[in-house]
């Protein structure tokens, strides 16, 4: 055990049992997984991403790239699984079960470690060069198995997640000294202040230094000040992960105090002003084998000693190029850890620091470097040399090699906001540049360090030169990027830092270069004999730390994964075994109504035959419905549709075709002229777009027109009774209007149907005699049930969307959303009969004129009769002139087995299709190619006598 006898913020009265790689350990409340593992002497945590090198704990915070684990269960949810979790931020809980990642069967004996031996064959750019040729499928499986940082959960989490919006005058990110002070000042000025911080308690880096420090006490007092609590909305355990336009910050909160049943909460915070006080993270030094378990940031070692009362090693060597590491040296020494040496790359370290070391019996070696760490799964020695002569080396035994290459201000959120960091020579690091949103950075993330040494002094050291020592020196741990990879990238002329990033993957992946980027930039600058500010940074991207899908989804899971819309008939549909599915605009609709033991295809065909020969009933409620009021509605409709509406009589409807400005199909539907207004219907999926289209026109281009549009889509249910017996069904249900004689096709009348006030229209989307009955939503279910009862003697059959599709394909009715593919114009679709080019104007007319003037071959809607009478061609299949041809001439838009014709049929868009009726073409699908005859698109009742009967 390496737990120190005293100190730390852990609660020694609350021991916690946990499991790592199947072995049980004990930690304390207040531990992270990392501190508990270190306290139990566990140094090897997992394997690296590419070379499967042994990796341990290098940091004590969210910048960790090496100690990644997979959660396999928690006490409250034994089946819980989460990959890619940083051991350094994972709060230890009783019953936590975690395991290593990137290794098999275990981190001690990992088969994948062969990659390390093969590393000369796997340089940067290996994938790009190797996997360009040949079918990707051949190696995709193997690569995908080898990649990743853990396993995707197999079952849904029982834990609960929440997504919440917040608004505040000032959002302060980071509750260290600078953040706390900024938050309090803002609050005192009267602003509402939200303060988010990723730690359990405020204090920032002061939590990691020894308590009793004067600054520490002051900040603790500030945090504990009741005035602070009153004025500031303090949100602990919350990491700001992204900063977006208009001061929108996204943050993830773990186990919020106000809602303990929530595991993670995703905040969307909109702030008038954002203050970034995100601090800085220490930078590694680049030397051979700088990734060995036991090589750790100096500040991390200090955190483990002071905060968690853990000795991360027994004999430590420090390697630094700056003054900040000495605080860690003193704290470790004072905790009883033997300090073998302090290797300081600076020629002249501060005398007072050297003296303080001497007082503790610690040797300081100025102008020296560690050129290599040795030891396989645990560091055993540090090889030390003078900077002036790297060939003269000596080994210093150690089980802990603490390094400090300086500090990287966490400029990530600043970068997310669209700003560019700039290089600050004074601290050898990038600091925030000019803000582009209402944002400012304070404290360490602004380069204003507040260390316990008097001044911060650094001698930039981007990499340690070597004397021919072989081995890998890592500049970016996460993707195993070495200095050799950068050399290769530069040799191959990838010199822009953005190109270096993409070629080597440095700065990519979940850590987004928190630790490595500055060194990468420094090394590139050194190689190109430029300054780091000439090189610049790459763009740091959100998220700052990984965000779970659970948090992103919040409550949008299970049955709530998508918003769903019901019609008043939905309860009946469910009760009668309908196969329900999403069918446009979030509506859940019945696709078919299978009888017990009946196949889907049979159910679809049975309903189609019922409509052709008897009676069917269809819930058409989702169709968009808009009331149009005002004296200028005819003028508007004449512009919206390709045909005329101003001559439409009251009580009559007309089919219309709506085009976009570019002359392509937008929607089609029937519009009725009522006594004092107009009722427009449109396709379900197009409804919201059509409404926006009309409103946009009225509010921007046609402001002179006196028209109001009111959406009544859900006000009115639409029940369609269709088939030759439909008239009889309505009469049987009881209707107070004469359904024969004068009630013509495309008319609408007010009526009382089965005791329900309704509007009855003669419209058909099936090709049969049909009556569409509009009733108020509240009355619709009763009306539906009455019609079903009245239809029993006629064997009335409920019709689902799939049957409706079959009926419309048989009739060759065009669906703007199916045959219209954003290229199709009305003439292509065979709808030229409805285009009145003599009208003064309509939307899309100008483009249609251009289409007509140019003799460019276009795709036309045609019918297809596949030669195999049993084979239904797949929708989307390509149309080719002959087998083996690559001359793509169109595609199948809709296809089905026609129960009426007892053979498969299809609609398609085919180049010059109108001129090719009778021709044979090849329909090429994924599984099979088949010949088909090109026909007119109407397969059934081409004169339309049945629907007008």
């Amino acid at each position: 055990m390496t737990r120190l006898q005293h100190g730390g913020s852990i609660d020694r009265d609350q021991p916690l049992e946990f499991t790592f790689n199947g072995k049980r350990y004990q930690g304390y409340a207040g531990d992270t997984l990392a501190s508990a593992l270190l306290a139990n002497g566990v140094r090897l945590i997992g394997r690296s991403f590419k070379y499967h090198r042994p990796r341990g704990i290098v940091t004590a915070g969210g910048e960790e790239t090496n100690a990644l684990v997979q959660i396999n269960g928690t006490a409250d949810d034994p089946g819980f699984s989460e990959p890619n979790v940083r051991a350094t931020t994972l709060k230890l809980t009783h019953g936590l079960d975690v395991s290593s990642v990137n290794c098999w069967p275990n981190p001690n004996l990992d088969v994948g470690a062969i990659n390390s031996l093969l590393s000369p064959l796997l340089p940067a750019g290996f994938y790009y060069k190797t996997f360009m040729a040949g079918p990707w499928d051949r190696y995709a499986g193997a690569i995908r198995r080898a990649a990743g940082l853990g396993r995707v959960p197999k079952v849904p989490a029982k834990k609960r997640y929440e997504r919440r919006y917040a608004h505040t005058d000032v959002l302060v990110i980071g509750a260290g000294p600078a953040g706390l002070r900024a938050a309090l000042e803002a609050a005192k000025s009267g602003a509402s202040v939200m303060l988010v911080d990723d730690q359990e308690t405020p204090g920032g880096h002061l939590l990691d230094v020894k308590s009793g420090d004067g600054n520490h006490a002051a900040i603790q007092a500030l945090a504990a000040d009741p005035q602070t609590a009153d004025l500031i909305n303090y949100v602990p355990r919350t990491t700001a992960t992204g900063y977006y336009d208009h001061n929108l910050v996204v943050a993830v909160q773990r186990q919020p105090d106000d809602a303990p049943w929530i595991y993670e909460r995703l905040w969307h915070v909109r702030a008038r002003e954002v203050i970034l006080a995100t601090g800085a993270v220490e930078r590694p030094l680049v030397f051979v084998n700088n990734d060995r378990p036991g090589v750790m940031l100096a500040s991390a070692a200090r955190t483990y000693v002071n905060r968690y009362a853990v000795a991360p090693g027994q004999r430590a060597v420090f390697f630094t190029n700056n003054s900040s590491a000495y605080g860690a040296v003193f704290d470790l020494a004072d905790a009883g850890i033997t300090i073998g040496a302090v290797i300081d790359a600076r020629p002249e370290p501060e005398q007072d620091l050297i003296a303080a070391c001497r007082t503790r019996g610690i040797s300081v070696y100025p102008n020296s470097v560690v050129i290599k760490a040795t030891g396989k799964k645990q560091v055993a020695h540090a090889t030390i040399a003078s900077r002036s002569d790297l060939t003269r080396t000596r080994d210093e035994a150690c089980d802990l090699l603490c390094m400090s290459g300086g500090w990287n201000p966490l400029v990530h959120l600043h970068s997310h906001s669209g700003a560019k960091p700039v290089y600050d020579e004074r601290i050898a690091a990038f600091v925030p540049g000019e803000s582009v949103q209402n944002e400012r950075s304070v404290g360490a993330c602004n380069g204003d360090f507040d260390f316990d040494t008097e001044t911060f002094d650094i001698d930039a050291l981007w990499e340690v030169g070597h004397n021919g020592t072989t081995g890998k020196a890592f500049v970016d741990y996460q993707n195993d990027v070495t200095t050799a990879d950068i050399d290769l990238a530069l040799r191959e002329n990838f010199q822009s830092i953005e190109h270096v990033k993409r070629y080597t993957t440095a700065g990519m992946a979940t850590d987004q270069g928190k630790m490595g980027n500055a060194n990468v930039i420094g090394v590139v600058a050194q190689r190109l004999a430029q300054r780091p500010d000439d090189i610049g940074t790459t763009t740091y991207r959100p998220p700052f730390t990984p965000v779970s899908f659970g948090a992103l989804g919040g409550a949008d899971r299970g049955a709530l994964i998508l918003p769903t819309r019901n019609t008043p008939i939905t309860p009946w549909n469910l009760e009668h075994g309908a196969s329900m599915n999403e069918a446009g605009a979030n509506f859940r609709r019945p696709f078919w109504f299978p009888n017990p033991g009946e196949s889907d295809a049979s159910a679809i065909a049975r309903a189609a035959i019922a409509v052709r020969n008897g009676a069917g009933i269809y819930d058409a409620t989702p169709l968009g419905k808009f009331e149009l009021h005002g004296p200028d509605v005819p003028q508007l409709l004449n512009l919206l549709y390709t045909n005329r509406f101003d001559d439409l009589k009251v009580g009559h409807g007309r089919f219309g075709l709506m085009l976009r400005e570019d002359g392509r199909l937008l929607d089609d539907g029937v519009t009725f002229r009522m006594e004092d207004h107009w009722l427009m219907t449109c396709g379900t999926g197009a409804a919201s777009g059509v409404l926006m289209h009309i409103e946009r026109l009225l509010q921007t281009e046609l402001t002179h027109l006196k028209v109001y549009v009111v959406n009544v889509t859900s006000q009115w249910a639409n029940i369609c009774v269709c088939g030759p017996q439909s008239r009889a069904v309505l009469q049987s249900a009881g209707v107070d209007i004469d359904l024969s004689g004068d009630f013509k096709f495309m008319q609408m009348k007010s009526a009382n149907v089965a005791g329900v006030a309704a509007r009855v229209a003669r419209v058909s989307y099936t090709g049969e005699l049909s009556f569409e009955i509009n009733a108020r939503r509240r009355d619709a279910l009763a009306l539906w049930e009455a019609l079903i009862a009245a239809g029993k003697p006629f064997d009335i059959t409920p019709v689902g969307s799939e049957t409706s599709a079959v009926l419309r394909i048989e009739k060759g009715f065009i669906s703007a959303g199916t045959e219209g593919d954003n290229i199709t114009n009305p003439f292509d679709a065979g709808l030229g009969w409805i285009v009145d080019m003599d009208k003064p104007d309509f939307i899309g007319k100008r483009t249609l004129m251009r289409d007509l003037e140019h003799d460019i071959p276009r795709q036309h809607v045609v019918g297809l009769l596949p030669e195999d009478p049993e084979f239904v061609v797949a929708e989307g299949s390509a149309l080719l002139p002959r087998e083996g041809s690559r001359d793509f001439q169109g595609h199948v838009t809709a296809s089905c087995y026609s129960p009426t014709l007892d053979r498969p049929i299809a609609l398609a868009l085919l180049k010059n299709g109108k001129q090719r009726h009778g021709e044979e073409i090849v329909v090429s699908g994924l599984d099979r190619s088949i010949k088909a005859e090109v026909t007119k698109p109407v397969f059934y009742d081409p004169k339309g006598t049945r629907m007008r009967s």
Partner: protein
Amino acid sequence: MNGYRVNIRRLDDVALVNLRCSQDTAAQLTRKLPFELPTAPMRASESTEGLVARLAPDQWWIRTTLDREQAVFSSLKDSTVNEFAAVTIISDHFQGFEIAGDNIDPVLAQATSVNLNTLNDGSVTRGKFARSGGTIFVIEQSKRVQVFVESSYADYIEAYLASIAGATGSRD
């Protein structure tokens, strides 16, 4: 505790009549009608019929009970017979919900990005609500709101609200 302290219920006896007309027409109507059409934007006021809300420069909602639906509609229709105006019954197009209790803020903050804390009693706003759309009446700030959503979404939104309210969030 494993949920927020809120009560969520459907508003069943609510009729809605939609009025679209110019502000001048509205001013004239106010003189003819037994209730006043609010002139302040996005505000609702009590009337003899119920709440009357101004939702847009040219749009008002008159909330009443279902048994008064036709009477209010007819009254408005008669009053606008020679005007450029649209009077439409939309009671079935929308479904109302009431969300009340001590903990409504965290529940609403999950359903909508609209900052309801800036809206005092009597305010009305519109926006995304539970991934569909909603018209929100602030009845008592932080204590009670009424939300109207398109009725086709009602079942989904009822389940969504129950989910985000947590296990103790009750529904009448």
